[in-house]
């Protein structure tokens, strides 16, 4: 065997996230929704926003092994940043998303300093504490956030000055889907890069990573900040599409929901975030329509079934039936 093919064997041994039939199916689903399910566009936009949010958690948790019960901190800060930006600075949406990403990223950077020094339950509690503190802060700072009433009354300009947000949600849906696709592409690139492999190494064995000379906390810090910025984009999207931001965007419920989404969809494979968001949002909507009082029970049962029969989530199950193992 010659040297070139030997190196080829090593290169082939790196399991990369590539685009597959699953991605094609998701694009098809989005296109079909746009043309044939006009009445559900608003709901579909929520799915896209939540998929961005779940992707952000997958980067931190699925790849880096950082446990979080407070990811809404970044979603909420992004949402407030985007709405305040629209209210006081500019109604241009893309720069609004950028502001959301930067603000949430800074919150991730600062809180990561404390959160990433710990692991396990302590880490989980610290993430929860950060989100709770920010929620209380938003509640107290009524002059800025409008407290319980939520922040509303801002406008969002047409995207590129061309595509106006319409009442049926066509623009909002396409906007959310394009942002989702861009974030997804970015994350694919990221998890296939050195930092993606390093993150998996840290998730698997942080002590050995140290003994390879890697400053574990610093690498996780980068990852956590990026994850926070992406969660901020999800929050910003939500603020721009819904034109209202409430305290619920920082709530424990939202933090827990995204963890459930990822558990349903599957972690460490990116596309698990899509499955999780679709199942969670659509099921919540349908169950609540059927039984407005007991709809959460339906979610509970589905979660139990998934954990029991597909512990890797839907993405793990898809990877198994297509005979291809994912990142994990």
């Amino acid at each position: 065997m010659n040297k070139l093919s030997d190196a080829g064997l090593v290169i082939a041994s790196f399991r990369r996230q590539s685009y597959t039939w699953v991605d094609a199916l998701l694009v098809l689903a989005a296109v079909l929704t746009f043309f044939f399910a006009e009445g559900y566009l608003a709901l579909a936009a929520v799915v896209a926003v939540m998929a961005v949010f779940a992707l952000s958690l997958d980067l931190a948790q699925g790849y880096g092994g950082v446990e979080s019960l407070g990811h809404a901190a970044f979603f909420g800060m992004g949402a407030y940043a985007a709405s305040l930006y629209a209210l006081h600075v500019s109604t241009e949406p893309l720069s609004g998303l950028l502001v959301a990403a930067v603000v949430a990223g800074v919150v991730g950077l600062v809180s990561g300093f404390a959160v990433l020094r710990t692991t396990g339950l302590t880490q989980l509690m610290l993430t929860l504490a950060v989100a709770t503190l920010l929620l209380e802060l938003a509640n107290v700072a009524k002059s800025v956030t409008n407290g319980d009433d939520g922040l509303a009354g801002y406008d969002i300009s047409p995207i590129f000055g061309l595509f106006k947000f319409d009442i049926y949600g066509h623009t909002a849906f396409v906007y959310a889907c394009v942002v989702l696709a861009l974030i997804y592409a970015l994350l694919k690139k990221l998890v296939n890069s050195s930092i993606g492999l390093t993150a998996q190494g840290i998730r698997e064995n942080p002590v050995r990573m140290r003994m390879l000379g890697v400053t574990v906390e610093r690498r996780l810090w980068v990852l956590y900040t990026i994850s926070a910025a992406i969660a901020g984009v999800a929050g910003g999207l939500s603020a721009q599409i819904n034109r209202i931001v409430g305290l619920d965007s920082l709530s424990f419920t939202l933090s827990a929901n995204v963890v459930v989404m990822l558990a349903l969809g599957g972690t460490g494979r990116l596309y698990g975030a899509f499955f999780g968001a679709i199942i969670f949002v659509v099921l919540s909507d349908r169950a609540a329509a059927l039984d407005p009082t007991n709809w959460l029970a339906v979610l509970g049962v589905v979660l139990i079934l998934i954990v029991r029969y597909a512990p890797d989530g839907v993405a793990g199950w898809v990877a198994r039936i297509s005979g291809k193992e994912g990142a994990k």
Partner: protein
Amino acid sequence: MTIALELRGLSKQFGELKVTRDVNLQLAPGARHALIGPNGAGKSTLVHLITGLLKPSRGQVLLSGRDVTGMASERRVKLGLARTFQINSLFNQLTVGENIGLALSAREGIDSRLFSGVTQSSALMDEAADLLRSLGLLDLAGRSVVSLAYGQRRLIEIALALALKPSVLLLDEPVAGVPSTEGHRLFDLLERLPEDVATLVIEHDMDLVFRFARRITVLVEGAVLVEGSVEEVRSDPRVRAVYLGERTHA
């Protein structure tokens, strides 16, 4: 010549319990040094003190003449220190190739690149292929580590350390738990270690120690009992009494 690894009066105390007592040790570049001692002699503690997983109560650790006593583990690694673990400490869910890739990208300082990976460097991929071929593991590059036989995993344990191109290598019981049928490849590997690497092996297997080491330090109750050449240690009655004797009767 600069001494590759030096321990000066290294001591570690947990409360009243003295685990390491005033240990002095010098490894020249290319040294083949074994650290032996009965269970509980403080060998693992000493490794932790050298690698920085534990902070000494007193004394100094020097790498190539540089005091690293207060330095974090990862910085010591960057200065040329590598170790293997007594119990395999690998990235089990990742492939063999990815395991080596992690070590290479860490060594090259490219492990935090956001948009490019170690596979894009053909020189590093050639190096990984050479390393895996020399261990007979090239064909298994795409297998996840967890699916490999125990002996093969022991080889990867050492390969990860070698990929760092260290100047000082600590091998913590490299053949522990490896069946004798699989041991020959490990023995071969240890005999073929790069000549300039100062190597400290902690081992219970006396065949390996006598075959591999040129000098031996015997540690008993945290203190150095004897240090000398293989013959000196072999013939020292104190060593026979506290260590070899025990093993003969075991």
